[in-house]
């Protein structure tokens, strides 16, 4: 059952990813981001990361996708500008290069995955007495605010930077 769901969502992700990359019209590309994010969220749930899945849908599906769509609508490309966006040689060469890259990384990764890792991956998760379940908000909170407190605080700086950047770049008159 889980296998089938995994395979289906994986296929969904791959198919929509291919669609995103190959569509000429950027609007279609953005629209196909939605199934991609949904597939990803399902995968996260399968991998015991429900909080991650929720965040994925909220931030990616809810915010980033919409902003992309908004920008594409804003700049409103004319059809003739979309026509010549296809250089066959470059396209094939890029596909080969990207695929080769992915394959190379994969071969490394597969060589590095030990049987112990593989079996642990398939081990059922089981929360201890009084412990929050893995992947829940409670289980993430402790390490987030203790072990990774410094980067967490730094993210606020990053957001301030993005904020100031949006102001400085997009404001009509300074």
């Amino acid at each position, binding site marked *: 059952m889980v296998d089938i769901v995994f395979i289906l969502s994986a296929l969904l992700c791959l198919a929509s990813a291919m669609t995103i990359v190959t569509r000429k019209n*950027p609007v279609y590309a953005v629209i196909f981001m939605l199934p991609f994010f949904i597939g*990803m969220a399902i995968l996260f749930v399968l991998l015991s990361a429900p909080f991650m899945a929720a965040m994925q849908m909220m931030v990616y599906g809810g915010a980033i996708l919409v902003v992309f769509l908004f920008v594409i609508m804003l700049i409103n490309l004319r059809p003739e500008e979309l026509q010549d966006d296809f250089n066959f040689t470059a396209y094939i060469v890029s596909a080969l290069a990207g695929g080769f890259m992915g394959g190379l990384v994969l071969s490394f990764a597969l060589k590095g995955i030990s049987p112990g890792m593989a079996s642990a991956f398939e081990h059922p998760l089981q929360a201890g007495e009084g412990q929050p379940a893995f992947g829940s908000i409670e289980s993430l909170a402790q390490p987030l605010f203790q072990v990774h407190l410094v980067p967490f605080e730094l993210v606020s700086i990053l957001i301030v930077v993005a904020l100031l950047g949006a102001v400085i770049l997009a404001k009509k008159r300074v």
Partner: protein
Amino acid sequence: MNAWLTLLETPADGGQLAGLVGFKLASCIALSCAIFAIGAWGVLARRNILLMLISIELMLNAVMLAFVSFARMRAGVAAEYTAAAAKALAEGAPAEAIAGLQAKSAIWTTSGASGQIFGLFIIAVAAAEAAVGLAIVISYYRHRATVDTRDMTTMKF
């Protein structure tokens, strides 16, 4: 607890809502690599700067998938230790042995959580990059009325 998982999974032993997965870690990593490669392909092949940004988002998602898969693996190790501790307790092993196993379980749980936390940070990073990237695109488009990278070659050589 993620109760709606029960829809997918028959409880394996006595009502335990376990996330037993049938698929392999390798297939998750392979999927991640495939999506990363597709994203890289997009960055290389597309001439529309917006599509390049979207392709980069694909790559970031692939990274998140890798993180979450590895985090799941860590949690699995922690669960193995928990199970071993329970077994030791049942067999009446010495207390310090049980404590050791439990401590290991806690360590692996924490390290597993780190992976998911990194994923969350990636979402934040991606959001910041997307916001800034789109702001730059708009600012550029106002002047040049183009988003094609072939028009962005005033500086070269």
